[in-house]
């Protein structure tokens, strides 16, 4: 079973992503509410995949992505962005993010991105 680390500052978004993952046979390796927690949890849990929000307090998703790629160049990270953040999404892809999903998203789109990256 693939394990996923969910990173988003909004409790509601973490709940929604967790729900989609658990209903489709994924294991939730952990939940982080900011980039700092994400990096710590990545080291601890070593998940197969990370869903990473971009805009977060303290350390944002781009900084966390950079650190995680530094720890594990093979890390699979999918960015979750709001609409209107195209420039940050492009930067994330250049930094090694595998794909991105735009909020508000449909569960089909989340699964499509995850299955593609895990394949």
């Amino acid at each position, binding site marked *: 079973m693939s394990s996923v680390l969910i990173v988003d500052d*909004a*409790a*509601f*978004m973490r*709940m*929604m992503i967790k*729900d989609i993952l658990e209903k489709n046979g994924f294991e939730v390796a952990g939940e982080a509410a900011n980039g700092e927690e994400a990096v710590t949890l990545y080291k601890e849990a070593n998940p197969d995949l990370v869903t990473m929000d971009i*805009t977060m*307090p303290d350390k944002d998703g781009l900084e966390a992505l950079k650190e995680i790629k530094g720890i594990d160049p093979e890390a699979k990270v999918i960015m979750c962005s*709001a*609409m*209107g*953040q195209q420039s940050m999404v492009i930067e994330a892809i250049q930094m090694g993010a595998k794909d991105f999903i735009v*909020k*508000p998203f449909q569960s089909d789109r989340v699964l499509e991105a995850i299955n593609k990256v895990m394949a």
Partner: protein
Amino acid sequence: MDANHVNAITRAAKSIMVSHLGMSVEVNAPYVTASDIASEQISVILGVNGELEGQIICSMKEDTAKSIVGTMMGGMDIQHLDDMSWSAIQEFGNWIAGTTATELSKEATTIDVTPPVINEGASSFHASSSFITLPLTSQIGDLNVHVSVKKSKALK
């Protein structure tokens, strides 16, 4: 205020209600509100900066907020608004603001939006600038979007 900017925000609010929440929505004629704005029981306040500066305030009755949260959670019946509900309502504000940013980018206007803040309890907002109110009617109640945006001073 530029009519194009107001129209972009109207399209964004309507699109979130219709496309993402599946509501049928009617947009009524916008009107200019004086600098005192009546807030319904729940308001989401978002700051706009970048090429435009100002605020977007989405105001609604508590029952409407509960219906929006319930729909966002996949059809749940929300009895009272808890911490998870507040997070959902903030996200609702983010969706409207994010879609507004996309709509404005089509008009070659770039904005950033500050994290949402929620005001709970019927009250009033007082501002030095006037607001335009976009009244949206849906089957789950009214959503009033109060907008005050103007060209950023730094760019004039």
